[in-house]
């Protein structure tokens, strides 16, 4: 081998080494970029939680929970009306949505191949995608306009529509996982079909259904847009569901856009309570999933 050959060999191998090095660096660069961007995404969450907790905790007191909002200029009002209102509006929505949603979910998982199931599944997807403000318009036209007054009931029905997709989807997806042998065993013992569903299949899938329901409640607890033209809000405590009613998200919105510092204080407090409630529900979902996990 001549010297020239040797030299060209050396330069070739360094070329190759450099190529490998560049590929390695690119590899490391992409991984760092992915990790960096992922960490950046968590910042807004931390910021939101930080500000809500920092400003919210100082606003919370016993009188804040038990009093009505005071007029501008007076300090020390509360949000009792909104707490009661939210509980009533969400409660009614859940009572309507749970049986309706679960039975649709059962239908979808039991009669998967039918034409009706195909169209229903499509309807669920479409319903999930409808902007919440449009739901508000529709319920306004259906109920508020015909009954002649804003009402808590109309708010509940709007929230029912918002909540249905999550219940239907979780029911359907959980029941799909339950093996057919379980159903066949029950049927072969002579248990009627409806009892098989109610006493065997649904209890087996309770964790998924429950977590869907809780997530649905967490979702509608903060919904504001569909309540703007339905429940409308009310500065007083009201338990008549045919009259306008206050709710936490409406209170946050109305006080946040007001120019008064006392009202901003109320909004921070209300936001704190709403966030704590939603975080609690999310944790509950996780626990429900862990405790009654579908295992086959």
């Amino acid at each position, binding site marked *: 081998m001549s010297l020239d050959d040797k030299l060209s060999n050396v330069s070739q191998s360094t070329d190759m080494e450099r190529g490998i090095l560049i590929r390695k660096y690119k590899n490391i660069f992409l991984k760092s970029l992915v990790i960096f961007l992922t960490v950046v*995404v968590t910042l807004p969450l931390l910021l939101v939680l930080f500000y809500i907790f920092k400003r919210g905790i100082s606003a919370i007191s016993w009188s804040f929970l038990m009093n009505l909002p005071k007029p501008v200029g007076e300090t020390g009002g509360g949000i009792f009306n909104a707490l009661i209102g939210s509980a009533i509006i969400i409660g009614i929505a859940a009572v309507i949505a749970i049986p309706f949603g679960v039975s649709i979910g059962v239908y979808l998982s039991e009669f998967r191949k039918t034409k009706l199931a195909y169209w229903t599944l499509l309807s669920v997807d*479409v319903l999930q995608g409808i902007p919440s403000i449009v739901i508000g318009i529709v319920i306004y036209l259906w109920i508020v306009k015909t009954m002649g007054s804003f009402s808590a009931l109309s708010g509940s029905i709007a929230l029912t529509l918002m909540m249905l997709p999550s219940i239907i989807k979780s029911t359907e997806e959980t029941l799909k996982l339950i093996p057919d042998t379980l159903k066949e065993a029950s049927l072969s013992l002579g248990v009627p079909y409806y009892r098989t569903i109610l006493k065997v299949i649904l209890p087996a899938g309770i964790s998924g259904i429950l977590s869907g329901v809780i997530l649905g409640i967490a979702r509608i607890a903060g919904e504001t847009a569909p309540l703007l033209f339905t429940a409308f809000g009310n500065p007083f405590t009201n338990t008549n569901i045919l009259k306008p009613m206050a709710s936490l998200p409406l209170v946050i919105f109305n006080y946040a856009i007001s120019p008064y510092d006392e009202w901003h204080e109320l909004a921070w407090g209300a936001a704190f309570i709403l966030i704590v409630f939603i975080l609690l529900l999310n944790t509950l979902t996780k626990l429900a999933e862990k405790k009654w996990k579908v295992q086959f």
Partner: protein
Amino acid sequence: MQLTGTKQIRKLQFGEIFFRNGLALSALALGIILLAIFITILVASIPSIKAIGISFFYGKTWNPVENDFGGLPFLIGTLITSLLALIISIPFSIAVGLFLGEYFTKGFLSVFFKNIIELLAAIPSVIYGFVGMFVLVPFVRDLETSLNVPPYGVGIFTASIILSIMVIPYSVSLIRQVIMLVPSSYKEAAYSLGATRYEVIKNVILPYTRSGIFAGILLSLGRALGETMAVTMLIGNSQIIPKSIFAPSNTMASVIANEFTEATGDVYLSALVEMGLFLFVVTTIINVIGRQIIKRFSIN
């Protein structure tokens, strides 16, 4: 004995039929409700469609007092706000999708960041708007002062930033799913040829999941177009066509939220409903196309 037996069976059969039909009926009811929603807003939009016609889409002035109902400023406001939000969110969505779907599919980090993304989706729109008003708006105002543009603080830019945070969870969950669907044999083949992870992602994962990622971004566009509360609180509510991305503007959803309860006169209310109809139709089309792409992708 025999008689009570048949009676019982008949009772059972009745319960059986009742139960099955009940299930089918509830499924049917959902479709009917959806159809009723569409027909309701279509019918309620007719006065406006008749009175305004096609100028609803190109009319530049929105002045309900003078019966001018030109929706162009809001159409532009909606499009710019949503597109800007998408542009901001896309790099983050793909990065988090890769993080959860490729780099860290199991273990503490994966669970931790998955929960973070779920919580981002769980925070209500009104809270994003509220915190945005008191944290982001002053920051943007400082930025605008240093850039020598009118320091409104509120406007398209502010609304888009918050909107981008709000849509990230939706695209991430889909992008993560499609990335996890890439057959491991493809990836292993590339690794066995000596490819680095960067090359596997660039030459195998991203080309394979292109349509799925597109669908994820499309679905988050559907979200962004209809998002109401946070945008209403941060966009500044101006009725004129925005001159820059820092200018205050209005989206269709925020106009509805602001003016619906105060709308006097049939045409005014109907014009707002027509905006809702437009939002409904556009988001439904986007949703159906997006879901169809995802469905085809998962079957492959």
